[in-house]
């Protein structure tokens, strides 16, 4: 196990070795400052787990906006493949009379549209959409050919706004842009910041209002968080963007505090809202009982209200007591087991906390599309070199908003809060919290997954659908950590129990001991044949 990294890298050709060696770390004892290469191009042909820019924009960030009619502009495939695949749950609420989550809209371009341009078809598609669904907001997401054939989706969006008096946003999130989904997240963040956030005036009802950024409500995670918040008396204005609505996001800038779950996909908005509106953000984690408690206490500390602090402590005491015996039961089963986690850009960190609570060790952790700050912490940002691929993704600069900018704390007060252990306006990254000898992989691929499992033999591997079946076929339990295998929620207090049960279920399924049939090696029954006669 100690040299799993070397064993794996040796199998690569010199060229691939040169590239991959910086993306693969095996942590030494006490090494909290290990550096890793990240957010660079994937190597062709090695079966990367990464998706594309369109997937990050449409699939992850804007797709879950329930009252937005999202049209995929392009041939049919991309629209179809991003239709209902993320398990981001949504229900209609007071903000939305329409819920488009079960729908897939595509301009379904044909060969002639590629040759002669597809703008006209897109505009006609929008007209049909208006007639049929009359949404308040339309978003257009571009697929690969759009940028190449010169269709201007932004111009179409502007014309749509003028013609129908609704909001319309065009995203140039062609699949080939950037190096992974990450570029798409950034493009989507920019669009929401530019055109949506700050255009509403629905004021919070309480003085403790928050947006939960980077919570996509997979398997109902956001709802479990909302349940806890409600008990504590914390008002959730928006989940970004699980179960979110265009209508709600418009007034997101009126929140008192931003909480960041998935740092990777939404830190841009957190930062921009801090600059433009003066809203602080706290890096929270609601995966794991201890992590949830800490996040709640951090929020209470930030608001610095005796009544709120008291309520938070009461809720924590009550919730923890409720799940205690369940958690102890699962811990007794899982204690000492090991795990590997490959996820998108934040869960590999989040779930280590929960696994640890169950007595498990995380020995492999990797991300598809994280940046160095997700591994090493935001302090590294000034040192990150921009390359050609990243430059292609627009970075927007926002200024203080005259009307809404309001600082809650002075710089000194913020420094005090930080030294009290709150991750305020910053994030420390995953690597500093990992154990010695564990392996960290950036932009993991199928080959590396297989090899690491072979050499490090974790009891369970948490990953996505693309790896799931090869992991299982190779004899290791697996849970999907992107979509939770139709389970969930995994967040908060109740989610922790659901997760513990699912992990125990996977490791202890009766199939594992049956893989090798008993009759293959030795006879099942012993005895002598009686002589007939």
């Amino acid at each position, binding site marked *: 196990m100690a040299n799993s990294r070397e064993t794996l890298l040796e199998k690569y050709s010199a060229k691939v070795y040169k590239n991959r060696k910086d993306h693969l770390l095996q942590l030494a004892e006490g090494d909290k400052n290990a550096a890793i290469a990240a957010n660079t*191009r994937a*190597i*062709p*042909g*090695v*079966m*990367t787990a990464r*998706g*594309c*820019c369109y*997937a990050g924009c449409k699939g992850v960030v804007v797709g879950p906006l329930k009252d937005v009619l999202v*049209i995929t502009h*392009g*041939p*049919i*495939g*991309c629209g*179809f*493949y*991003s239709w209902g695949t993320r398990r981001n749950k949504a229900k209609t609420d007071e903000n939305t*009379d329409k819920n488009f989550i*079960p*729908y*897939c809209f595509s*301009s*379904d371009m*044909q*060969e002639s*549209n*590629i040759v002669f341009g597809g703008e006209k078809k897109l505009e*006609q*598609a*929008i007209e*049909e959409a208006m007639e*049929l669904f009359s949404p308040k907001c339309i978003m257009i997401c571009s*697929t*690969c*050919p759009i940028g*190449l*054939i010169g269709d201007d989706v932004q111009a179409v969006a502007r014309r749509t706004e003028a013609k129908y008096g609704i909001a319309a946003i065009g995203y140039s999130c*062609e*699949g*080939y842009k*950037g190096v*992974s989904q990450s570029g798409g997240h950034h493009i989507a963040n920019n669009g929401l910041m530019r055109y949506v956030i700050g255009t509403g005036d629905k004021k919070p009802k309480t003085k403790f209002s928050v947006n939960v950024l980077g919570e996509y409500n997979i398997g109902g995670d956001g709802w479990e968080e909302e349940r806890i918040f409600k008990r504590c008396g914390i008002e959730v204005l928006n989940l970004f963007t699980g179960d979110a609505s265009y209508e709600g996001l418009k007034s997101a800038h009126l929140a008192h505090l931003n909480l960041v779950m998935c740092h990777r996909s939404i830190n841009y908005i957190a930062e921009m809202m801090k600059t433009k509106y003066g809203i602080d953000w706290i890096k929270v984690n609601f995966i794991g009982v201890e992590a949830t408690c800490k996040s709640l206490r951090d929020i209470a500390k930030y608001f610095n209200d005796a009544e709120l602090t008291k309520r938070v402590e009461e809720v924590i005491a009550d919730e923890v007591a409720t799940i205690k015996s369940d958690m102890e039961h699962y811990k007794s089963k899982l204690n000492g087991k090991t795990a590997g986690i490959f996820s998108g850009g934040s869960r590999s960190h989040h779930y280590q906390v929960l696994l640890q609570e169950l007595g498990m060790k995380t020995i492999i952790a990797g991300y598809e599309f994280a940046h160095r700050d997700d591994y090493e912490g935001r302090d590294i940002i000034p040192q990150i070199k921009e390359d*050609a691929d990243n430059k*292609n993704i627009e970075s927007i600069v926002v200024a203080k908003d005259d009307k809404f900018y309001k600082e809650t704390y002075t710089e000194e007060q913020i420094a005090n809060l930080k030294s009290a252990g709150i991750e305020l306006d910053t994030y420390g990254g995953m690597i500093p919290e990992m154990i010695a000898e564990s392996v960290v992989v950036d932009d993991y691929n*199928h*080959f590396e997954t297989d090899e690491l499992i072979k050499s490090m033999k974790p009891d369970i591997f948490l990953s996505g*659908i*693309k*790896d*799931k*079946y*090869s992991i299982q*076929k*190779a*004899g290791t339990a697996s849970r999907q950590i992107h979509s939770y295998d139709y389970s969930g929620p995994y967040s908060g207090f109740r989610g922790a129990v659901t997760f513990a049960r699912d992990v125990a279920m996977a490791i202890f399924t009766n199939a594992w001991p049956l*893989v*090798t049939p008993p009759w293959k090696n030795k006879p099942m029954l012993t005895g002598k044949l009686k002589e007939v006669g």
Partner: protein
Amino acid sequence: MLNLNVNPCKMCMPMGAISALWGVKGCMPMLHGSQGCATYIRRHMSTHYSEPIDIASSSLTEEGTVFGGEANLLKGLKNMIELYNPEVIGVCTTCLAETIGEDVGAIVKKFYEQNSTVKVINVASPGYGGTQNEGWFVAIRSILEQMEPNKQPNGKINIITPMISPADTRWLKSFLKEMGIDYILLPDISDNLDGATEKHYERLKTDGTSITDIAAMAGAKLTIEFSEFTDEKNSPAEYLKETYGVPYVKLSLPSGASGMDKLISVLTEAGGAPSDEIKKARGRYIDAMIDSHKHSAQARVAVFGDPDFVVAMVWLCCENGALPVLAATGSISPKLKEMLANETEDCRKFHFAEEIRVLDDSDFSAIEKGCVELGANLLIGSSDGRRISRKLNIPLIRCAFPIHDYIGGQRTRILGFDGSLCILDQAANAMMEKTEGSFREELHEKFYKPQTAKKAADKTATHPCFGEQACQNARVHLPVAPKCNIQCNYCLRNYDCMNESRPGVTSKILSPAEALERYIKLKANMPSLTVVGIAGPGDALANFDKSAETFRLIREYDQGVTFCIATNGLLLPQYAQELKELDVSHVTVTMNAVDPSIGAKIYKYVQYMGKTYTGIEGAAILLANQLAGIKMLSEAGIMCKVNCVTLKGINDHHIYEVTQMAANLGAFMTNIMQHLPVKGSAFEGLERVTNKEIAVLREQCGANIKQMTHCRQCRSDAAGTLDRDVSIEFRESVPEKPGPEKFRRFAVATQTGAVVDMHFGQADEFYIYESDEKNARFVETRKVIKYCNGPQCENKEERWNSVIHAISDCEAVLAVRIGPTPEKRLKENGISAITTYERVETAVLQAAKEKRRNTHGTA
């Protein structure tokens, strides 16, 4: 929809091409394009097959789109060989590679210069070039085209299938063996996409059709291609014939006895023979057909998917006496209709069905519409039908790619006798489950709870519009239907539909849940409420989902209440059956003409089936649907009233014909209505037909059909506790004021409703009260256009019209103050003004007494 695909019933070419390559031994597929394509396709295939799906990507970035993807592709090929050591690599293009014009053939040539041990097949599969079905065949054809052929005659039979499940592929192989056929199957996905868990796991799939076998296809004696939809450009069989002279037979997928018998005949001719086991399997299938015929015959099936799948399932349905009401594919495949026409005709006739709908290039919004219109009760296809299934409560048999909400996609069976039985059993069981789940309740409702399901006669007797003696009964119109699908020239769309609701008032639209809430509230305060109507503000049927949901919710709450709707009739034929099922017992259809040339003058346009029609064409479509719809209603035992707006110089000479036609179609009564010009509408300047003329018309038409003349009584009571939802028939056809011997009516300007506290000019609504001097009774509130004092305001006349119109049945207005001009104008219209600052009830009682004194005084 022509340009917007709403919930696609198709995927892209690379999906099919990759799937086919999984059936080649030792093959690793790669997508040349941006890496998202590989990721999305891996994700979708893995979910369906529960198998690892390795698809490499050349991971093109922005740089590649500028300088071409050659470097990435060559690098990718090299890395794949190092990591997987495959025998074959299939490179499929994507939208991106094709749009930038990659010459993959040339790149592959370059690759061969450095490497000769691995076979590379390139497949041109742009995402915009077709669906997964085309991608599948293009890949097979490319494999054959790029293979070194072995033309040595080998006496084997080539087998080419469209995309079928691994389980069906396994069956096909064992069946061919059982028939004694020596075959080469391409592609063979049976093990690669449905692998076992064993001690050792190999990353590279080791099953599938080998390169040697593929080469030998050139020397086969026959090709059987299970597709009716391939053409000379993409048919693998055609290629083998053209290039190597291998003859071919094209068959549809072998489902059902007819499909299987055809296949067995062909194979027998080719030297095979059905074994005893095959004969027994056939016998079992026929046995099951007989056993489940009565269940199968209940099924009205909607089939969707790839064309060959659809054909196989439609024929299976027909063979088993189920009616395939809808056959749809997302592919552009005009041939589908032609393929199905003859086979389904007998089935259609046998079931007395009007239509078997065949759609190509369709999406799930079109399929859903078809399911509703054609009354489908079973869906067969992929799991993408689950949304329709849930929404319309129709069971779905999942047996085509992709299946994402169930497991076992790799094990679905539709082929052969036992595969057909899988479908047949599921279909029959779905029908039985429906019966099992509902028939007790139905019987109970029918025989033991007569009081809850009221008879039509009872309902009519208690319906304030239909029953003459029903004046004590109240009704509520719930405004849940905002959209309208026609434009009448007398109607101004900014406001409600004039026919069915008061003009000049844009009422709040209620959601079905809110409508239920309003009903519950009203019912609690008004036990006499016996009728719920949906009369707009648009058209009840143009918003059928909303209307239906409202009725369903209210029916759950109240078993006894009567349901009625008002409609222009355009969608009646579509929904007549549903209305019956929703227990709607009364329908009002507004039909202003039975001659399209007259209708053309009345209707500006008619929107039907996604198209807008104008002039005679539009009027004719509307009329045809009205006539068919009214007939269907009367046949279904639904009471139908025909409203007819009398338009001077346009249809006033034609009313007699309208009522005659209504009578012939079985309508219950007609309501000849006065036209009230709405400012801004096309008929704004049209002269009004007088009350007298209306009365004469009614008398004449009374010879044809029962006339509605009793609006007056209805109005006072039905409107008694309702505010804005009063439909026009009650309002406009009774301009007469209540007689002096009865109640007198007053319009009160009040903000709170307690005290007469508003200036006449400030009021944007009036509280209408009735009094017989002993009691003062609140009737309703009526909105009017707000008065404006601005110098540029052009609304004054409109305000006046709206006020006069709203309170024309009142004897006096009660307000705190009123200006001299308005007072004068009111007086011209026979309404006096009383200024007071009193409690409303007191003021009304006083006014009633005063009025009587005045009347008597002047008499």
